[in-house]
């Protein structure tokens, strides 16, 4: 159990929303500025999209890997600290298990964009909170909630395909392509 002084101050009284939420939002904006508006971020993006072009431009690949891994580790460590010092308030044997994998899904759902993942993180939070609420109110086992979460994510991923592609019914070889 943490001392009260060691905990992150709560933002809205009576809830578990704390200052780390504001820090997260600020960091998301900072990440967007860093990736979209700074030269270092540009070098990282070129390295990710076209490694050979980055090498040709003289951007150092090893340095980019070091930097991006350092930033990733920093953010992940901050997430763990915020979870322990915020809503949990104590060290448990397993802190936030499965959150890392969920975060990978969030990153991809958000289109690997700093502002997009804010929205997708909120969507994921709704799925998690909804699962917890269903567990309490409908007396469902945690396994049913996991099934619900998994199938909901799959349905969401399928729905994204309908956003990105247009469905066309065509009879093969009979009609000339319009």
């Amino acid at each position: 159990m943490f001392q009260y002084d060691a905990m992150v101050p709560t933002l809205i009284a009576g809830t578990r929303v704390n200052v780390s939420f504001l820090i997260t939002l600020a960091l998301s904006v900072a990440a967007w500025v860093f990736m979209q508006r700074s030269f270092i971020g540009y070098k990282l993006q070129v390295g990710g999209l076209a490694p050979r072009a980055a090498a040709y431009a003289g951007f150092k690949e090893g340095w980019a890997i070091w930097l991006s891994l350092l930033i990733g580790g920093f953010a992940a460590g901050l997430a763990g600290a915020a979870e322990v010092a915020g809503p949990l308030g104590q060290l448990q044997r397993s802190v936030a298990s499965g959150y890392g994998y969920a975060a990978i899904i969030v990153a991809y759902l958000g289109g690997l964009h700093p502002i997009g993942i804010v929205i997708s993180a909120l969507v994921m939070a709704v799925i998690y909170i909804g699962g917890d609420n269903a567990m309490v109110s409908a007396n469902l086992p945690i396994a049913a909630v996991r099934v619900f979460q998994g199938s909901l994510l799959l349905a969401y991923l399928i729905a994204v395909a309908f956003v990105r592609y247009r469905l066309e019914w065509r009879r093969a070889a009979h009609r000339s392509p319009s």
Partner: protein
Amino acid sequence: MNAIEFILAGMLAAATPFLLAALGELVAERAGVLNLGVEGLMAFGAVLAFIIVYQGGGHLLGFVAAGLGSAVLSLLFAFVTLGFRANQVAAGLAIGILGQGLSALFGKTYESLTVRGLPKLALPGLSELPVVGGLFVRTSSCGFHSPRLSLCGPYLPTPSLASSSAPSARTRRPLTPSAIR
């Protein structure tokens, strides 16, 4: 039994699930698909096999059912990633969550029950060897078949264009990219 023998004895038994799961992942990766839902598929197969064996279906039926059941779940993964071109990483992790949830749901009533395990295999000549003998006693018969399966691995064809979105695999494409994106 000293420490080295003890470790060696447990080694094959512990390596068997890794080997089998890695074999499945190998086939998928060679085809250009990243399947991160292996954990869920394994859990689902394990629960299916346990239920079948507990209900008296026998070990062979359990193995077949586990493989087929996880293959059906894998088919769902293929449906989402290949049919709908969804992101493989996100879909794989979602399948992992789904598989673990399904296995926990089905296996809830079978918790802390026991079934008769696979017979321990002791190879006549090898088991009496001084140090490495323990390697050949404690493994189940499943462990002896998995290396044989993995021999097929290197001979799988490597696709020239390793990409899930290679259109050659599909004659009819239900989804065509719109002109906007």
